[in-house]
């Protein structure tokens, strides 16, 4: 099982994830229509690019936008969740040992203590994200079973990973479960709401171009996100 998961299944899930993300990203931009969207994307590439970058970067900074500042609690748990969810899978020392063995390269690695903190931050933030869904009427009304499924799917590799890391119960069982959950998550990315990993950038870029090209970006100081 372990061999299969770290062998063919690893390659398969990684390929599905990467190719899937590229396909979604490319299809998004290919599907934009200047006439239907009413944005002259191609006529103003420079302004459009600047607007897109501005729209993306501002939202990547905690408290960097009016939207984030308006909701400080959400901002903290949002970044608490996403920072760990991005950094830990990519830069955990153990993951990079595995990568080195598989493909002969490894990325920079996180300090193990810091990696622990980030992982806990993912789990605690996710807990609050769930609590928020249950307790706030304006979020509850939007929430569907699918939203919980996606959240749990995203948390599963972190929970199993932590259990394995603290060696609670059978290490090999939890390690296998961790790899399985991680790969399930990779495969799910292109086909579910997890596609926002790339479509966040695409969608933000689109609105940025819209404002930069059509809705006043060429007049005055531009948009205050």
């Amino acid at each position, binding site marked *: 099982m372990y061999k299969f998961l770290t062998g063919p299944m690893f390659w398969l899930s990684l390929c599905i994830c990467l190719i899937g993300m590229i396909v979604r990203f490319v*299809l*998004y*931009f*290919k*599907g*934009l*229509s*200047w*006439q*239907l*969207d*009413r*944005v*002259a994307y*191609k*006529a*103003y590439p420079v302004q459009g690019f600047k607007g897109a970058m501005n*729209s993306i970067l501002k*939202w990547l900074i905690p408290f960097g936008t*009016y*939207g984030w500042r*308006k*909701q400080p609690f*959400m901002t903290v748990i*949002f970044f608490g969740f996403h920072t760990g969810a991005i950094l830990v899978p990519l830069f955990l020392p153990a993951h990079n040992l595995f990568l080195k063995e598989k493909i002969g390269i490894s990325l920079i690695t996180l300090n193990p203590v810091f990696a622990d903190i980030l992982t806990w931050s993912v789990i605690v933030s996710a807990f609050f994200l769930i609590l928020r869904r249950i307790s*706030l*009427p*304006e*979020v*509850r*009304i*939007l*929430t*569907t079973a699918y*939203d919980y499924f996606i959240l749990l799917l995203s948390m599963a590799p972190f929970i199993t990973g932590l259990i394995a890391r603290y060696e609670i119960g059978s290490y090999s069982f939890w390690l296998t479960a961790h790899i399985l959950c991680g790969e399930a998550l990779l495969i799910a990315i292109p086909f579910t*709401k997890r*596609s*926002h990993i790339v*479509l*966040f950038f*695409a*969608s*933000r870029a*689109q*609105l*940025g171009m*819209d404002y930069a*090209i*059509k*809705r*006043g*970006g*060429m*007049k*005055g*100081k*531009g*948009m*205050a*996100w």
Partner: protein
Amino acid sequence: MPEGKYCNKKPIETEEELKELLGDTGGKKYYEEMKALDVDSELLWKTIGNTLKSRTKTWLEICAHCGMCADSCFLYLINDRDPKQVPAYKIQSTLGEIVKRKGKVDNEFMHMVMETAWAKCTCCNRCGMYCPHGIDMGVMFGYLRGLCYQQGFVPWELKIGAGMHRIYRAQMDVTNEEFVETFKWMVEEYEEDYPGLEVSVDKEGADILYTVNAREVKHYPEDLAEAAILFHLAGENWTVPSSGWEQTSLSMFAGDWAACKMQVESVYSAMERLKPKRMVGTECGHAHRATVIEGPYWAGRSNGKPPVESIHYVEWLAEALREGKLKVDPAKRIKKKVTLQDSCNYIRNNGLKEITREIMSYIVEPGYFIEMTPNKEHNFCCGGGGGFNGIGIFRPQRNKALITKRDQLINSGAELVISPCHNCWDAIRDLEDEYKIGIKWSFLKPLLVSMVEIPEHLKPKE
């Protein structure tokens, strides 16, 4: 009953049809017939297939259901934080649901969609600024209105409004002759006070082609005179077109895209015919949105621009004051607490926040100008945007919506609010009528006419 006599899927195409629908006071029979109107699911689904592409599809799909848009929506806030007023919920439960059901929705559902699209969203686009994914629900509601219009589920006044554009190329039954006559008549009225005041019609190659809102012709002709006076005092070489003078588009509020195209093309053809250096539009928000921001796309102009450079009245005015073409008498500057209404259609959606404040710096005595909170591109809708002002059956919802602006005005402590937008102007008039807070409201033109210096050579001879 599939199609009614008054309420049906067919756009208004003749003057008789328009008059007949107008004769149905308050849309009584119209709405009665709507209760039995069939939904053409096949057409609905086909239209969605052809028009709901990458951007909107992705918006519907990746919405994280985080609810961060809730607080951005003034209708959510003013309706006691009713979760059903959360923008994401409003669009997911209407457009999202239609897509999910592949267009197979019934009459009752479409009634709910109509109310949501016109009474729970003014297409102010504020939510789009607060969504981490950049999902602009106002844009989606605009799209949804188009689907509703196609199916015949559109408020009576807006079906008429779109019909007016189709028949008269104006939002009201104002003919080209009436427009020209009214303008000339109003100018004559002021000739004695302003010697040499005139309006030239269809002058080719003028510096400015001036376009208006048909309401000014029908109900507020003073506005035309004021525009003429200010151009005259500024020494502008300006003209009005005998056709293609109407800048507004109720068809945009109705979601009648074919009528939007017809309307805006009438203005563009005036530009092409008269070849002015620039077009200046009147103090109206949605008119600017329709003719300058969205219009080029309806007309299929791939550079997203009208045939000649087109600017809002505030842009011309700021320039005239900046360059000294118009000089404000310092003694006549506004010396009472005054605030400014930021129109969604050209502040949030056309970046003119600094220009309007520049005007304030010329016309308000320092220390008297107060910002509303929030303001500029983050300002709230006046409460009557997107056609909300004019829809009879949704009047109670509209009146409630006005409370947001009422409270913003009260909290500002201003005595006067300057509102260079017809829709906002109406909403503020109505909120004063409804809630009596003692606020005064004004367009810029009458204020300017009362405070600009008249150059010696333009003064009347004693």
